[in-house]
């Protein structure tokens, strides 16, 4: 069995993995990026639509173009990309982490590194996860799989489509399927508001005249061998209106019902997972409960913009590099998701410096106020003209606001939306 040794190992070569790896290279540290697919880029490679990089590059790129910019940078450094290679196990051995990786060319590699950055991305929630009853014919796909089939493999999975869930991938696929000549009959969403970005509702549904059924539950899938239709039931005041159910004939159902960070490897290694994000609990340095193991990108919590992914990943890489240089975090303050907030990531802040926080609201609201309390004292209030669960909120807190925590023991920072 082959052995390899690096200062740092990055698991996953998507946007997050590449951005984190570049930080190690910039500091002269040796680093490997392990990626299961043949090329780097991750999910970006199948997102051929525009809309990436507005913050990062100040222009609108397609997913592959965005990935290419990072890949070029990676190629110019001493980073070792190990593509077509899957990490199957991670263990801690003394000061080192040992990753078992497998590829057809090299067999099993025991890759040793002092620091590890997790950047495995996420997977799509599927039919079983949301328990749609009915038969199990061919023609039910997750939207991401359909996207892969159409954009990369060149196949059309079906002609008459109903999309369940109004997540971004589903919206993008509604437009994509229309472009390739399919009829998209409906997008069905259980919640009273869409779960994708507003711009996608406009550009992908409204522009194509695709109806969006909000507050509707998919109560059945019909068809013995291939999908023949779906049954949709309105929800009124929280109750299913079964007598108002109706059937939409179709041969294909695409599911866009959310993403789940892919943390089975992490769990097996002993990393603690936050049930609100399905990603690891991390401290102010994006480090998990295992010293030297960091996390960023969609494996930490699901992001809607790749620009935020790379921003977070850069910080994870930089923190890991500092950790390798012997720097250990100072005092940290626990962060709590207060009223109307689903989660805040990371779960700790360091009062001695600037902290970037990502959070998601539980509510749709106009003229909302984001309120930050330290030990029950308001330290910041931010006006937001509109908040909704599908759009992540960013917040930077600095020394000025967190000063009081430096002296008080057991401080708690609570963030809420009023």
């Amino acid at each position, binding site marked *: *069995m082959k052995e390899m040794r690096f200062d740092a190992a990055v698991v996953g070569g998507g946007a997050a993995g590449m951005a984190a790896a570049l930080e190690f290279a910039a500091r002269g540290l040796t680093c490997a990026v392990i990626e*299961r697919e043949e090329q780097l880029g991750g999910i970006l490679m199948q997102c051929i639509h525009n809309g990436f990089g507005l913050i990062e590059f100040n222009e609108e790129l397609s997913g592959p173009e965005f990935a290419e910019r990072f890949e070029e940078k990676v190629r110019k450094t001493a980073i070792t990309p190990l593509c*077509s290679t*899957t990490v*199957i*196990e991670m263990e801690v051995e003394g000061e080192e982490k040992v990753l*078992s990786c*497998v*590829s*057809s*060319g*090299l*067999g*099993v590699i*025991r890759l040793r590194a002092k620091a590890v950055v997790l950047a495995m991305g996420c*997977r*799509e929630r*599927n*039919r*079983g*996860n949301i*328990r749609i*009853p*009915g*038969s*199990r*014919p*061919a*023609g039910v*796909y*997750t939207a*991401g*799989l359909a996207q*892969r*089939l*159409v954009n*990369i*493999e*060149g*196949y*059309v*999975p*079906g*002609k008459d489509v109903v999309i369940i869930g109004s997540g971004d991938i589903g919206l993008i696929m509604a437009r994509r399927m229309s472009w*390739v*000549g399919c009829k998209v009959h409906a997008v069905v969403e259980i919640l009273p508001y869409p779960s994708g970005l507003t711009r996608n509702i406009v550009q992908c549904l409204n522009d194509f005249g695709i109806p969006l059924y909000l507050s509707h539950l998919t*109560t*059945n899938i019909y068809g*013995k*061998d*291939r999908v023949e239709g779906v049954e949709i039931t309105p929800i009124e005041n929280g109750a299913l209106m079964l007598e108002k159910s109706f059937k939409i004939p179709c*041969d*294909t159902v695409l599911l866009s019902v959310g993403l789940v960070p892919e943390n*089975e490897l992490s*769990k097996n290694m002993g990393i603690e997972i936050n049930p609100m994000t399905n990603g690891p609990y991390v401290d102010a340095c994006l480090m998990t409960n295992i010293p030297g193991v960091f996390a960023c990108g969609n494996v930490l919590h699901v992001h809607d913009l790749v620009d935020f992914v790379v921003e977070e990943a850069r910080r994870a890489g930089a923190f890991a590099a500092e950790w390798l240089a012997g720097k250990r975090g100072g005092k940290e303050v626990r962060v709590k998701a207060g009223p109307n907030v689903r989660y805040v990531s990371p779960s700790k802040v360091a009062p001695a410096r600037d902290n970037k926080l990502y959070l998601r609201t539980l509510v749709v609201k106009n003229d909302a106020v984001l309120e930050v309390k330290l030990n029950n004292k308001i330290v910041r209030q931010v006006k937001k003209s509109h908040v909704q669960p599908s759009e992540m909120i960013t917040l930077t807190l600095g020394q000025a606001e967190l000063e009081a925590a430096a002296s008080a023991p057991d401080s708690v920072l609570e963030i809420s939306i009023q």
Partner: protein
Amino acid sequence: MKPGSDSFDVAIVGAGVSGANIARRLSAYELDVVLVEKEADVSFGTSKANSGIVHGGFHHNKKYLKARLELQGAMMFDRLKAELDFPFERCGIVVAAMHEDEMRPIEQLYMQGVENGVIGIEMCSRERMLELEPKLSEDCVGGLYAPGGGIVEPYRFVFSLVENAQKNGVRLMTGFAVESAKREGERWTVKAADGRSIKARYVVNAAGLFADEVSRAFGAEDFAIHARKGEYYLLDRMTKCKPARVVFPVPTSVSKGMLVIPTVEGTVLIGPTATAVQDKTDLATTREELDTILKSARNMIPSVSETDVITSFAGLRPFMEEDFYIEPSKKAPAFIQVAGIQSPGLTASPAIGEYVKDLLKKEGLKLVEKADWDPFVRKVPRAKDLSPYELDELVKKDPAYGEIVCRCERVTEAEIVEAIRRGHVTLDGIKYFTRAQMGRCQGGFCTYKILKIIMRETGMGWDEITKRGEGSSVLRGEL
């Protein structure tokens, strides 16, 4: 037999676990045997969607044929596993009483088990139950333990049986839906819906839910098989509720109740329900039934959580009367009925193979043992069962073991190719053989890779690939 000949000594209709065991048993003799199946692959009927339990021998009275065959069949599994390389484990069975009133039926089951000669069967106190199964609810008041009960992956069992039967000369014809039959002299001519036909001296009707139709096609007994649906939930292998043994509730008069089953492959099954349905192809799951399952599973094991659900499915029990109906037809010559094979059909199936072989002998079939019968199938190494060292060695011999196709169940390209070479060319066939698409993402990541491998290995076009045979095409166009 001359290759390509369409004349056989025995034709078996239906490649479920009954037909497969009969075929494999007959493959040990100098006979020309054909196994015909209407679906695209074997085990696509009731034998693919059931609880997968090798029962403990205490549920039924020995006056029933099904109980006698269950007891005999259950004992044959260890040997079969050694020969046929399918997942099977004797993890033991507990029956949990959740109320004092349920201790009487427990006692009756115990007495029945003792009468049936079940080895090691034990009446248990509450403490003993919680020791055997710490995940059980605190409300458990006692129960029963049958250490010999086990779990099996039913489709893998059927795949191996059929593969071994084929290795020993049995011919398999899939997509062959028996429609009509005629007796001409000493032979049956059996016609399929697609126009193909075969001839056979003896015919075995092991057509599961449709054994009634097949019986009528042969002018044999007129009976009706009804379907009783059982719905299930499958839970992720990371679930915290996985018990060490199969956990049964106290049975009711119609079914053995809803169970919590630790599958051999590490996932957890909960179910099944029991509802009569009219349509014998109706495998739809329903909201109400699925809610019932969660409730009753939680009653026994409180940590069962719906967030662990990865999929749901249903199976249909072929219900006819109280017992199996296995005997030579009284109306049609050289025609053996193997019908009404409801639970414990899977457990009993190896014994059904023996029993039918003996019936055929009584009916005049000459059985001469083959000198070169080979009881083994070639084992497929599975990446997920290997240590990193073993996997490394394997990749050196076959690099396709280094390509992980299904990340959730850790299935490599080599295993997919092996499935295809052994005749499983539908997405479901590959799923049952390899477990790819069976894990938590349910094929979200690997389906496109599998499609490409099928096309490469078989030369099939994109429009020929199906989920499980005719009508279930996967792709509808090319750009």
